[in-house]
């Protein structure tokens, strides 16, 4: 079924949001636009303000400054029960004295639906999360994963325009968490509404999201698709926080035709794409993902840095090789285990060259 939809309708628009608790500023002027139908993730380390921002959107906290609108309507002053936004709470907050069905019916009834409507809707939702056979149980009789799905069904039942999810998977064990990622994504696709998802787990963010907002200490660091964030981090924080990377200190020697020539200690030289805000003579960081590096025993065309293998670490899918560059810093190179047939593994202490494809190295403005 092909649905023609405008991918650019803005569902939630946060403008210059500031949140202060006394003298502490939890959110420092955050602006972001979340599109309709988007799986949008707020990602950042503990204490960076993800929950605070989510609670502001839900109506549980008031903004100190700024504006927030939902499909064009200003909602900053509306109480939570007047906002067509529902929340999956981090601890689920299922009503312990009600059955699963009553829990899911609650929002529909409060929104003015009849008992019959609510029951109908609850059965649809429990079907969606595959918990129909548990309808008459109490929440305490379900496992953590099942409770999580009930919380999802309950929040979806009143047909909100936006669903907020605060680390809904954090209480689950690893296997279940991974399975739920796909389920959640699938449910979002079926429900066709905007999900705003909070997590501090970057893998979760990368695998599920249409777009990710990376936050740190109350500030928005970067906003983009998983690919943009991973491959073109704007700054050191994002490069370091998302995935593994080689962060090298370099100084920029020359700029020409969109490329920057940089050197790092030991006379090693690198060419990478120019970045706004980095001029000649600047001392900045450079990020290179370990999987974009290869090893060889003779120098190859392009950037080829000489060094000595320190160690090989077997990590399941990959082998991680640590190389000490001659009179330079250490680098980590990742070789996929499936490539082993056509790639050599160098023993410790053997001299090697570290090669990178064009565009692998990325200059970071700060």
């Amino acid at each position, binding site marked *: 079924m092909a649905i023609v939809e405008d991918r650019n309708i803005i569902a939630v628009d946060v403008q210059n949001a500031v949140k202060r608790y006394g003298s502490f500023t939890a959110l420092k002027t955050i602006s972001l636009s979340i599109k309709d139908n988007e799986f949008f993730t707020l990602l950042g380390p503990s204490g960076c303000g993800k929950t605070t921002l989510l609670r502001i959107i*839900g*109506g*549980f906290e008031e903004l100190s400054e700024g504006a927030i609108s939902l499909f064009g309507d200003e909602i900053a002053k509306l*109480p*939570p*029960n007047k906002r067509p*936004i*529902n*929340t999956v*709470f*981090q*601890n*689920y*907050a*299922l*009503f*312990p*004295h009600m059955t699963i069905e009553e829990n899911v019916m*609650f*929002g529909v009834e*409060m*929104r003015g639906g009849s008992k019959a409507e609510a029951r109908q809707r609850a059965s649809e939702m429990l079907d969606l999360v595959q918990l129909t056979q548990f309808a008459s149980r*109490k929440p*305490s009789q379900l496992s*953590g994963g099942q*409770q999580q799905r009930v919380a999802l069904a*309950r*929040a979806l039942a*009143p047909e909100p325009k936006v669903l907020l999810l605060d*680390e809904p998977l*954090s*209480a689950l064990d690893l296997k279940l968490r991974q399975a739920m990622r796909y389920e959640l994504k699938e449910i979002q696709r079926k429900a066709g509404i905007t999900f705003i998802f909070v997590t501090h787990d970057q893998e979760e963010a990368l695998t599920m999201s249409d777009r990710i907002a990376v936050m740190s200490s109350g500030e928005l660091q970067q906003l983009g698709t998983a690919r943009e964030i991973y491959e073109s981090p704007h700054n050191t924080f994002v490069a370091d926080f998302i995935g593994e990377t080689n962060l090298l200190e370099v100084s920029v020697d020359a700029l020409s035709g969109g490329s920057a020539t940089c050197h790092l200690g030991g006379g090693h030289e690198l060419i990478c794409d120019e970045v706004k805000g980095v001029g000649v003579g600047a001392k900045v960081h450079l990020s290179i993902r370990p999987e974009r590096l290869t090893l060889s025993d003779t120098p190859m065309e392009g950037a080829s840095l000489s060094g000595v293998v320190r160690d090989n670490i077997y990590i399941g899918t990959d082998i991680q090789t640590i190389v000490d560059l001659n009179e330079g810093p250490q680098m980590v190179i990742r070789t996929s285990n499936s490539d082993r047939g056509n790639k050599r593994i160098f023993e410790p202490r053997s001299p090697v060259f570290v090669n990178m494809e064009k565009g692998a190295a990325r200059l970071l403005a700060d």
Partner: protein
Amino acid sequence: MAQAGEDIKNYPGFMPITLFCLVVLYAPLLVVMIYSFNESKSITVWQGLSFKWYVDVFVGPESAKFKEAAINSFSIAIVAALAATAIATSAATGMLRGGSFRGRGFSFGLINLPLIVPEIVTAVATLIFFSAIDFERGYLTILVAHIAFCIPFAYMPIAARMQGIEDTYEQAAMDLYANKTQAFRLVLFPLMLPGIVSGFILAFIISLDDFIITNFVKGAGIETLPTAIFGAVKQGIKPNIMAISTMLLAVSIVMVTISYFVGKSGDKLKQPPGEK
């Protein structure tokens, strides 16, 4: 954790002290219970099993007096406990859900102060209060006094239960389009109910059992069970008093048992493990 060798049971003197406490606590009660079934009028010599003193309570020469006292006692206890529970529930909601407001700590003290004020002081003060406003002493003065001193007793279990209810439940209700009243009625109140029932029962027992304050504020011509028993005992202890006491004890035990099971039946408030 105590090691096996340091088990409290192995401390010298543990058994004698335990026995002494149990005897002091329960021997008098046992004596009263046993002798309430005594055939003879004696309160020290056992002469065979009989229910005659129980019959005497209901049809004997003093039965009219006891019946009236019992009606007063129970009606006052029910009304006082209901009123105190209603007030305590609102107080707990305000104290624990009203956010922080000026004088919160002070209000907390105010609610619980009666627990530590010696009862005789409260009794005298209440009496002075009623005299000062020229309130005629009788059923109503007892009732008002009972409502007042029952509030902290009703408040304690209600507040304890409420403290265990995280405010995410109300937030979830509000998130699901309930207004404040609905969130209270449909979510918070049902979750508080076990605490409210316990509070009611505690207040009921405290009221039923009160002697000092009642005796001060009751005025002439009206008795509750405790004051009636006290009056009767002044003319010598008869086994019918033991029968009444045993029945009162039974009522207390039944109420406390109900309270215990209500507390246990309440829905578990435990949250699934998660990072907070």
